[in-house]
């Protein structure tokens, strides 16, 4: 059942981060980039909004479906019963009303339903008004939907002020991860379409968007490293333990992939984006830069998907520090980690 739980969590995390990333990219990258190239009469300024509505609707649907699956699997885990036996009103009621996970699950369900309503209004009103409500409402709700994941995670293992700092740190970590990895699919799509020589306005849009995304990526990576270091403040003494456990090896894979992603982002920012910035039309150097930028964005995205999968698996694994703690305590007691 753990495999299903990992898969369900991975799908949910992915959908939530993608949702937030789409809204962020729409609000702070694509929207301003569109305005900067608005002199191109042929550009369809409504297309990004339609794409946002399509992707966001899909993400919310996947988010709700995977959240329900997560709840049912957690009910079986918490009760210790087989899945089909755990699907009874009494158990589900106890999970939803009497556990932190259940109460947060209900809050997040409410957020996803309000998001659905905002998107529905967006579909209805897109012909009549600008996307201000969609932009502001969507980014706030998608952000809240992402940050509340922190309350389902390991930050709760701390107590008192430490818990609050850890939760705040995880909150920023989630937002930064969403703003970076969640925005990559849309960025890759923009770069793909920019290579059409018959549509120079798309090239101009991609150049402007890439420059803005580069700044967003820098903030995101800085926030990810900073929040990780804040978490390390509590747990740095446990690094050696990571080398000798399965949990630790998973974390080291996450480190390796993250380092490669940062390296790719650095190449994009320091080498390829300046190449594009000096180009005004699609010539061979700028086309090559476009192709490499898109390839790197897709590689970063693949790395992001792998990291999300690892995080989903780590959430159900026994942390290295506790494995070592157990080895040194209570030789006459028997303990086991179930999930």
């Amino acid at each position, binding site marked *: 059942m753990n495999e299903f739980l990992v898969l369900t969590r991975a799908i949910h995390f992915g959908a939530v981060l993608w949702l937030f990333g789409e809204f962020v990219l729409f609000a702070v990258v694509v929207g301003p980039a569109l305005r900067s190239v608005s002199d191109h009469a042929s550009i369809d300024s409504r297309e990004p909004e339609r794409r946002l509505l399509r992707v966001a609707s899909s993400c919310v649907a996947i988010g709700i479906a995977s959240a329900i699956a997560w709840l049912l699997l*957690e009910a079986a*885990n*918490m009760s*210790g019963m087989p899945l089909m036996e755990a699907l009874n009103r009494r158990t589900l009621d*106890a*999970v939803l009303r*009497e*556990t*932190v*996970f259940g109460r947060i699950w209900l809050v997040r369900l409410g957020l996803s339903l309000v998001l659905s309503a905002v998107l529905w209004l967006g579909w209805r009103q897109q012909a009549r008004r600008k996307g201000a409500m969609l932009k502001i409402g969507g980014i706030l709700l998608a952000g809240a939907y992402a940050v509340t994941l922190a309350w*389902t*995670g*390991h*930050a*709760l*293992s*701390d*107590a008192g002020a430490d818990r609050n700092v850890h939760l705040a740190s995880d909150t920023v*970590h989630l937002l930064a991860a969403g703003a970076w990895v969640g925005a990559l699919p849309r960025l890759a799509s923009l770069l793909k379409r920019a290579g059409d020589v018959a549509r120079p306005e798309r090239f101009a849009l991609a150049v402007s968007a890439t420059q803005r995304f580069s700044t967003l990526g820098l903030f995101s990576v800085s926030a*990810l*490293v900073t929040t*990780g*270091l804040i*978490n*390390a403040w*509590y*747990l*740095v003494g*446990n*690094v050696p333990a*990571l080398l000798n456990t399965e*949990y*630790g090896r998973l*974390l*080291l894979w*996450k*480190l390796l992939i*993250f*380092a490669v992603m*940062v390296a790719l982002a650095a190449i994009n920012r320091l080498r390829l984006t300046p190449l594009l910035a000096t180009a005004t039309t699609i010539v061979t150097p700028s086309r090559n830069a476009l192709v490499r930028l898109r390839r790197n964005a897709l590689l970063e995205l693949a790395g992001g998907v792998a990291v999300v999968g690892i*995080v989903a698996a780590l*959430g*159900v694994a*026994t*942390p*290295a*520090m*506790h494995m070592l*703690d*157990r080895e040194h*305590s*209570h030789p*006459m*007691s*028997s*303990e*086991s*980690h*179930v*999930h």
Partner: protein
Amino acid sequence: MKGVRCVLAALLITVATFEAGAHAFLDHATPAVGSAIHASPTQVRLWFTQELEPAFSTVQVQDRDGRRVDRQDNNVDRANPMLMQVTLPQLAPGRYRVVWRALSVDTHVTEGDFTFDVVP
């Protein structure tokens, strides 16, 4: 190179510690794990390394034949959610097994057991 090493060290700390934590394990108990006591205890108290969810955390005390002997009133302390307890009737001399199941607030389940002896 020094700068690269600093960045790599920061990344190592960042990622390596992001998910560490969680899971409620037994910290200590009264009667203590494996102890022998002369008087029948009035309750068994278990302190864990993390806060517990009362709805799905349990403890019971069994005699040598596996029969449950506690008063079946196990609960997580409201003031200290890391403490789980159950009261006991007067126990005859013998070996007793404490079997516990803990659900931590971040949804991880741990199980365990230990024994203590009541001696004349």
